[in-house]
């Protein structure tokens, strides 16, 4: 037996000492909790250094921190401004959704759904008798009176006036996997949900009936959007199949459009993404689907899905760890690994930002359409960081 074989054999026969596995997971949980506390401590320190501490304390009773309005108001303030910082429940980025009027932000929490009134800085909690009621995704109906929330593989409709659960939507039997994305059609009649197995579900909201169940060829859907006419849904995400990828390798991502009847996939593009970046998708006002993703060459690639053609490429200084598109595809938010988020304005062709007051843990931050949301008019952007705080900015002066 040569040395190589002896090494291999010794390796396969290695077993850890008997007590090694005992309590390992508990030790892991303790260490993990420590690391969360460290991040929180650093975040607090950074905020304190930024001179936000007094305001933080002052705003605590109401739960919202609001930097004072700049005085005097400049004619054209160029940079986005921080509007609010909210405390969400628990770590991990939380799913967010703005109400159609942009005044209320729904934050899907571990045990509840919080509705933050951004004008008054108050919070309303939607709780369910089924405790704990966590939620993975939320979406407002266009009339602002109904909120759809997913929990695991269920979708519940809440009546916001009475804050009661109105209905559950039917699911195909045996379906598993979290529904991580929800979206209403612009007329509010159709609701679409994507699960983490790449399955797209479509319901008729009024009749509470399933319209379609579409297995897309995407392994995990990261964004979902309706065409303004409400008949077509676009989804984007990492393509299924393929091998394992290291940093710097291009990872295939797909964007496809589906008829709400789920009959066929109409258009699709395949793009190359960086390992950390998930694609975003949105419809332009003319009805063309646009998909964007951070690629391994430190750029953002933007495609017209409908025409299957590249639209434009923006070069960055850092790898882009995530992109989010506003609903009408007029604004794109992109993140760097250090947590710098900048906004690209497609119409004016200007880059705004970085967004002020945002200092997530370095090398841990990635932006995804699941944990960030624009208002329907694109004038506000909310992002939840990995420690559970939610930041809201005014994007356009």
């Amino acid at each position, binding site marked *: *037996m*040569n*040395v*190589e074989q*002896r*090494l*291999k*054999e*010794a*390796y396969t*026969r*290695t*077993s*850890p*000492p008997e*007590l*090694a*596995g005992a309590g*390992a*997971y508990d*030790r*892991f949980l303790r*260490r*993990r909790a420590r*690391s969360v506390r460290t991040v929180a401590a650093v975040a607090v320190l950074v905020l304190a250094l930024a001179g936000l501490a007094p305001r933080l304390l002052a705003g605590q009773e109401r739960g919202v921190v609001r930097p004072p309005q700049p005085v005097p108001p400049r004619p054209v303030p160029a940079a986005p401004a921080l509007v609010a910082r909210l405390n969400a429940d*628990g770590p*991990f*980025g939380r799913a967010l959704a703005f109400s159609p009027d942009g005044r209320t932000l729904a934050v899907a929490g*571990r045990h509840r759904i919080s509705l933050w009134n951004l004008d008054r800085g108050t919070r309303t909690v939607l709780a369910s008798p089924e405790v*704990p009621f*966590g939620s*993975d995704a939320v979406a407002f109906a266009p009339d602002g009176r109904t909120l759809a929330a997913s929990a*695991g593989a269920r979708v519940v409709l809440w009546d916001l006036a009475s804050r009661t659960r109105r209905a559950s939507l039917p699911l195909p039997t045996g379906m598993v996997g*979290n529904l991580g994305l929800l979206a209403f059609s612009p007329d509010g009649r159709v609701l679409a949900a994507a699960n*983490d197995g790449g399955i797209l579900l479509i319901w008729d909201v009024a009749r509470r009936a399933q319209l379609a169940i579409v297995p897309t060829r995407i*392994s*995990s859907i990261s964004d979902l959007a309706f065409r303004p006419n409400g008949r077509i849904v676009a989804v984007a995400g*990492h393509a299924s199949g*393929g*091998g*394992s*990828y*290291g940093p710097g390798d291009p990872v295939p991502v797909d964007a496809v459009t589906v008829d709400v009847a789920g009959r066929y996939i109409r258009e699709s593009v395949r793009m190359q993404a960086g*390992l*950390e970046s*998930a694609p975003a998708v949105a419809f332009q006002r003319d009805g063309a689907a646009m998909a964007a993703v951070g690629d391994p060459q430190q750029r953002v690639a933007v495609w017209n899905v409908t025409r299957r053609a590249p639209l434009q490429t923006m070069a960055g200084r850092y790898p882009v760890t995530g992109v989010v598109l506003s609903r009408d595809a007029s604004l794109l938010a992109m993140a760097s690994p250090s947590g710098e988020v900048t906004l690209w304005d497609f119409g004016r062709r200007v880059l705004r930002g970085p967004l002020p007051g945002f200092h997530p*843990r370095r090398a*841990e931050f*990635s932006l*995804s359409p699941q944990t960030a949301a624009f208002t329907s008019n694109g004038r506000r952007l909310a992002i939840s960081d*990995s420690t559970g705080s939610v930041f809201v900015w005014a994007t356009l002066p």
Partner: protein
Amino acid sequence: VAAEELGFQEFYAEQYGRLLRLGYWLTGDWGQAEELVQEALVRTWWRWPVVRRLDRPGDYARRVLVNRHRSLRRRALVEARHAARVQVQTTVPFDGHEDAAVLAAALRRLSARQRAVVVLRYQEDLSVVEVARLLGTSVGAVKAASNRALARLRSQLGPSAEVLTRSARRRRGEGER
């Protein structure tokens, strides 16, 4: 989130033993191995929403572990932290398998880099290209390091007569490779 947590717990249970073994051969010490593994898994948890979508999330955790080990400053810290913990046994014999103990002792005498190359290439069965990418070096450097390391191991271990005849027999049986 409950499902996310559960998914990670499953992943943890699946990977813990595998990573611990790799950590042991990289460091030659079960206590340090555990430190490395826990560190790597905490870091993997931080990126879990992204990592869980990968085809082989275990490879991500392994990469983190190897990177952690690579950083010498980090290793010094791990050692210091480990020294403060008394309850961990440092010299646990291998399940009565003597060759492993001999090999582990010989590996410990290699440089950290050579050891990493040998462990990843011959024990984790990674290709030269994968090893080079993991260690952030060139393919040539990996080949050179593994040749030097093997030569050193061979000279240290010294082939016993029995081993010689067996390998000679095998060579005759299989012919030219």
